[in-house]
């Protein structure tokens, strides 16, 4: 037994070390979950500014409301003009 360890001891220890390293690497965290350092300039690029979104939201509300009001106003004006013309032609008769 003593002769075995003196002859194969370094080989067995080297084999155990290689096995341990392989096991550690096998159970290591995947790269996408690990911390990745970035430069100072890269952090600013990730922030989404709120100001354009708020302005876009308020502008969208106003544009859509104005389009609807103008459309309603024009349709109402056209129908009431036509109605008054037809009523004039009808004289006293009521539809």
């Amino acid at each position: 037994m003593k002769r075995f360890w003196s002859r194969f001891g370094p080989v067995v220890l080297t084999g155990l070390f290689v096995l341990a390293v392989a096991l550690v690497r096998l159970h290591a965290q995947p790269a996408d979950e690990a911390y990745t350092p970035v430069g100072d300039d890269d952090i600013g690029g990730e922030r989404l500014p709120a100001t354009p979104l708020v302005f876009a939201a308020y502008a969208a509300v106003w544009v859509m409301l104005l389009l609807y009001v103008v459309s309603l106003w024009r349709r109402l004006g056209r129908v009431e003009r036509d109605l008054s013309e037809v009523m004039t032609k009808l004289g006293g008769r009521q539809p």
Partner: protein
Amino acid sequence: MTFGNRLVPVLLATAIVTFAAAPYVIDTAPYESTMGLVQRIFYFHVPVAVLLLATGLLCGVGSAFYLKNRTDRADAFALACAEVTFVYGCIVLVVGPLWARKAWGVWWDWEPRLTMTLVMWMIFGAYLLLRRFGGAGSEALAAAVGVFGSVLVPFVYWSVNMWRTLHPKTSVVPTLPAPMMGPFLWCAVAFLALTTVLVVLRMRLELSRVALERAYILLEE
């Protein structure tokens, strides 16, 4: 001069004054702790969303009344409410994603509140298409669609409490702190005045259109 016609100038003046002052009133509100500036969208988004549900519900009431009594005024009221619901749906479905992009990190999520609002908006879109292209007699069919669309309103409202969603719950507005509640109520009054004006004017347009059709028929006889 009817009550509605007397009401329009007063409500229009109220809407103009309150909307003109709205930016200054909103500016007095404090920033929300987690969302910051983007939360300012709330002061226009939520009143429009509440009135979207209110007009959707009123369209159903008007439609049901029309199906029972077949009066022109009920039909005109239902149509006016459906059109305003559709316009407010466009606003909510455009403004909401702008807020969501910053608050949730995505433009859209297929969660219950957003999905049901989209479905409701499409139903009222179908109502308007039916009225535009349905031909004679489409009023009754559209009224049935209006009732069907209004049934969705309670589901849209309570969806955030019933299911797990990204969207904030209905408890947000009643629990608003006073400095945020003031600007919210200010904008709510502005939109309520404008909505009433829009519904009254759209009703007037529809009643005038019906009168014009009948006048043409009388002229041809």
